[in-house]
């Protein structure tokens, strides 16, 4: 018996007992006790350790690889390189479907490309052997900057050149729109490449036994790894089992499969032993993706009454050596966030000799917000309107970027209004202005930004099983990963809500292609709205089967019965009830297996989450140092499923946005070697406990949307980081009257511009 989740108003929860509560995680114990076995913790009998030799050059051709010495070194069991049998595996499909590279391609198009790999008894021996491999390179000219890459004469990453046209989007009459404007602003922005840098390194343990390959992978999606590894190695899906019970962060960089998994599998096949291959931190900064660097020119027009008349965006993004999507979604907010009849967006990707981009938390959106939300503030200033008021004046009811399809619900105005109120926007603005008038080295300012995320609706496919045992405990079986957002906890809460089973009696089996059901990777703010409805459908299926079994015992039609407080009860006569444990059919079959699948999203409307964030900063007028004093995130993601994990997402998104605005930049040796200069955390600075304000407030806009799906929720993980950096930039402008248009803020340049902007104040 199968229940497809059926979105309808009456199927939605009118009230909830469990869902929405601030509940600790169901897997908290193992995470704080240290007993959670992450893939990088796994130790198998006979396990070998692998290490990879990588190109030290941004662009080079490998002329010769000599592994003879390495193969004879202590503890070494196997060395793989391009000449090894079976190692010439295609990698990085191009737009025409033909591969752009292969596993150990002698043409290295960025620093860190794989040249050879070693399996040895210890990681120390493996690294010794890697160092003993002799390679002759022909070093070739490299280009690592997007604007330089599309200039005439730049070294080509691929035949055909580095310029890849992206989307071209147009609606209305942009020239007429600018002509009708009272104020026009045009500014240039850039954002530096940002690295995902999850705490657990990328890698896996691979074990090949006979025809069966098992991979324990630190991944956001076991089924994605299964299909990609199976395709690379020519194996049936069923012969590749991928297990990823825990993952120490991913942020998009663990959505896809890396070469490491295939290399580990080949080494395991060669040696007949399990092989552990986890990258070093330095390697991970080279080859596990990034939020691509961007350059944007944005022009916008507004009338004095706050009507937006036109937007024109030109965007350039650097997809790295193998991705044509460096500018992907850069323009989405310009297209979609505010009501505007005349919009033109042109984006271009540049291939560069650097590591390939990978989707990173809301791809394109924080970059686009960096430009759009600063330009909107500038327009507000020009017409003398409050920035919140200008945004509220232009809240759309339809998705203009999708041809005017209506949003099923939009909480954008509520995020702006309630967020401003909860933050104390008016008082904070006045307070900061008063503090500035009082003088001093530190200038205070407030700023805000808004956003939406193109995704967050979730959707099919998803399949989930709920096994209801005779003692009233439940096993929930789903393939999805919990990447730290609290997926398992939310799913257990849904089962608890529907079946009345306490969380302590719910066990979850997940993220294993051998034993759990198909799921798409966890990412894009879609896991809760994808898996949640399927979980609820499975629980409802369970309940329907229990009622049907009880109907036979009670001698009543199933339609007259319902599940309530651990018993099947006659709706009209609650005295006629049967505790679940006494249902004879359940006692006979011992378990009821409920199955749920994810329905299609409703046609004809758009489902996405909305956001507004507010912050207060202070800027040192002499040094340019920026301190973030407090933040508030107002987020509408449909129903709040767990207030505690909801708030934690808000803290995390804002923290990541602070890093994007203030400190994070992948620095390549531009114009020289093209190599990565900041290859670990000491020089690539992510926020520490000292950069984050203790006062981050989450202000949820709890707006269940039962028409969207069976749980009425949208996703949250991406929108929480979209407006953050722009809000900080707007606050810096409020503080010192200088716009930081490039991420991350350059303190020296900011201090110089502060001095130039206000010489009178300093004398």
């Amino acid at each position, binding site marked *: 018996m199968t229940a497809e989740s059926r979105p309808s108003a009456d199927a939605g929860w009118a009230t909830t007992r469990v869902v929405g509560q601030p509940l600790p995680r169901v897997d908290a*114990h193992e995470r704080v006790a240290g007993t959670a076995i992450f893939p990088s913790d796994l130790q198998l009998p006979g396990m070998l350790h692998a290490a990879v030799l990588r190109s030290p050059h941004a662009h080079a051709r490998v002329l010769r690889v000599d592994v003879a010495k390495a193969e004879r070194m202590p503890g070494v069991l196997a060395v793989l390189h391009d000449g090894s049998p079976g190692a010439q595996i295609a990698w990085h499909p191009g737009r025409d479907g033909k591969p752009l590279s292969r596993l150990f391609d002698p043409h290295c198009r960025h620093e860190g490309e794989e040249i050879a790999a070693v399996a040895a008894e210890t990681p120390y021996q493996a690294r010794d052997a890697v160092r003993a491999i002799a390679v002759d390179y022909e070093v070739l000219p490299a280009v690592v900057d997007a604007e330089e890459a599309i200039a005439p004469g730049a070294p080509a990453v691929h035949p055909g050149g580095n310029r890849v046209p992206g989307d071209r989007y147009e609606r209305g009459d942009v020239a007429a729109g600018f002509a009708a404007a009272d104020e026009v602003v045009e500014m240039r922005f850039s954002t530096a490449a940002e690295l995902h840098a999850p705490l*657990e390194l990328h890698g896996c343990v691979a074990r090949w036994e006979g025809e069966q390959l098992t991979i324990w992978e630190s991944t956001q999606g076991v089924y994605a790894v299964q299909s990609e590894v199976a395709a690379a190695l020519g194996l049936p899906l069923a012969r590749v089992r991928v297990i990823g019970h825990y993952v120490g962060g991913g942020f998009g960089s663990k959505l896809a499969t890396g070469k490491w998994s295939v290399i580990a599998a080949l080494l395991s096949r060669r040696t007949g032993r399990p092989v552990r291959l986890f990258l070093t931190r330095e390697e991970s900064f080279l080859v596990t993706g990034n939020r691509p660097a961007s350059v944007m020119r944005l022009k916008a027009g507004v009338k004095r009454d706050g009507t937006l008349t036109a937007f024109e965006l030109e965007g350039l993004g650097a997809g790295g050596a193998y991705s044509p999507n460096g500018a992907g979604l850069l323009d989405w907010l310009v297209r979609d966030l505010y009501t505007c009849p005349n919009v033109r967006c042109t984006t271009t990707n540049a291939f560069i000799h650097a590591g390939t981009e990978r989707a990173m938390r809301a791809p394109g959106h924080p970059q686009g917000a960096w430009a759009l939300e600063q330009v909107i503030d500038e327009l507000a200033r020009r017409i003398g309107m409050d920035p919140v008021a200008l945004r509220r004046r232009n809240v759309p009811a339809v998705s203009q970027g999708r041809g005017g399809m209506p949003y099923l619900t939009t909480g954008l105005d509520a995020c702006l209004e309630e967020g401003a109120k909860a933050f104390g926007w008016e008082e904070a603005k006045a307070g900061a202005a008063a503090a500035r008038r009082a003088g001093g080295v530190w200038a205070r300012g407030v700023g805000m930004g808004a956003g939406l995320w193109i995704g967050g609706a979730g959707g099919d496919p998803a399949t989930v099983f709920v096994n209801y045992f005779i003692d009233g405990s439940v096993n929930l079986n789903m393939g999805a990963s919990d990447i730290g*957002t609290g997926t398992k906890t939310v799913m257990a809460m849904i089962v608890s809500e529907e079946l009345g089973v306490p969380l302590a009696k719910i066990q979850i089996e997940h993220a294993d292609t051998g034993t759990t059901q198909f799921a798409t990777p966890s990412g894009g703010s879609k896991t809760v709205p994808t898996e949640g409805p399927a979980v609820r459908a499975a629980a409802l299926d369970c309940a329907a089967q229990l009622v049907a079994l009880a109907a036979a015992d009670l001698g009543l039609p199933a339609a007259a019965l319902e599940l309530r407080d651990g018993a099947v009860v006659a709706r009209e006569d609650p005295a006629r009830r049967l505790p679940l444990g006494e249902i004879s059919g359940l006692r006979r079959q011992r378990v009821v297996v409920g199955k749920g699948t994810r329905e299609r999203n409703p046609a004809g409307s758009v489902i996405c989450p909305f956001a507004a964030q507010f912050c207060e900063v202070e800027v040192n007028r002499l040094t340019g140092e920026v301190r973030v004093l407090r933040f508030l995130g107002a987020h509408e993601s449909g129903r709040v499923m767990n207030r505690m994990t909801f708030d934690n997402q808000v803290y995390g998104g804002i923290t990541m946005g602070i890093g994007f605005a203030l400190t994070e930049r992948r620095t390549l040796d531009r114009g020289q070697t093209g190599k990565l200069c900041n290859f*670990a955390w000491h020089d690539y600075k992510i926020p520490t406990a000292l950069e984050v304000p203790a006062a981050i407030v989450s202000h949820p806009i709890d707006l269940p949307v039962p028409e969207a799906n069976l749980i009425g929720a949208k996703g949250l993980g991406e929108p929480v980081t979209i407006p953050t950096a722009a809000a900080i930039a707007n606050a810096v402008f409020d503080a010192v009257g200088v716009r930081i248009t490039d991420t991350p803020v350059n303190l020296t340049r900011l201090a110089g511009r502060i001095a130039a902007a206000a010489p009178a104040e300093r004398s």
Partner: protein
Amino acid sequence: MADDERPPSPDPAGGLSRRGFLTTAGLGAVGLAAVRAAAPPEAEPPPEPAADARLPVTLRVNGRTHRLRVEPRWSLLWVLRSELGLTAAKSGCERGECGACTVLFDGVPRYACMTLALEAEGVEITTLEGLAEEGGLGAVQRAFVAHDAFQCGYCTPGQIVAVEGLLRANPAPGPEEIRQGVAGNLCRCGAYPNIFRAAAHAAELRQGGPDRDR
């Protein structure tokens, strides 16, 4: 490897750079071997052992004594995880930057990735596994659960051990002292505000305060 060509970078904890760590590991072992051999003052210094020669070491971990033979270049983190099976301490960078490997050395937080196993002789090492109390989780662990002071959980063992070390030195830290206490432990998920709350609550629990929800 590519990073071998780069100059060493300074380490925030005041230790060695990764490159320096690898190249001086053998010398460190010689030094320790010399200390051990100091009792009979022989004329000949001990020969430098090969990088993969194993030396005896005795480690005290979570109250138990382990006699092992280790390569002089092996980090304490590697020995804890691979030789002793104590995998709570995590490997995040192996260059003293993230704190996921934090353990206590006589009660003081220390990066196990930047410590040679041979250097760890003669001290009481405490890992996260050693913080459980009879019948369940320790105070800091309970506070981390109650305040949702983690997301993916990978930095969490190091964060908890860092807070434990902070509270042993300073039983009632203020907000700024808590921030400083975990400043050497990166959390990319950004659960810092909850980590701060958990640390403050853990201080109360250790003083006999009640468990509470938030």
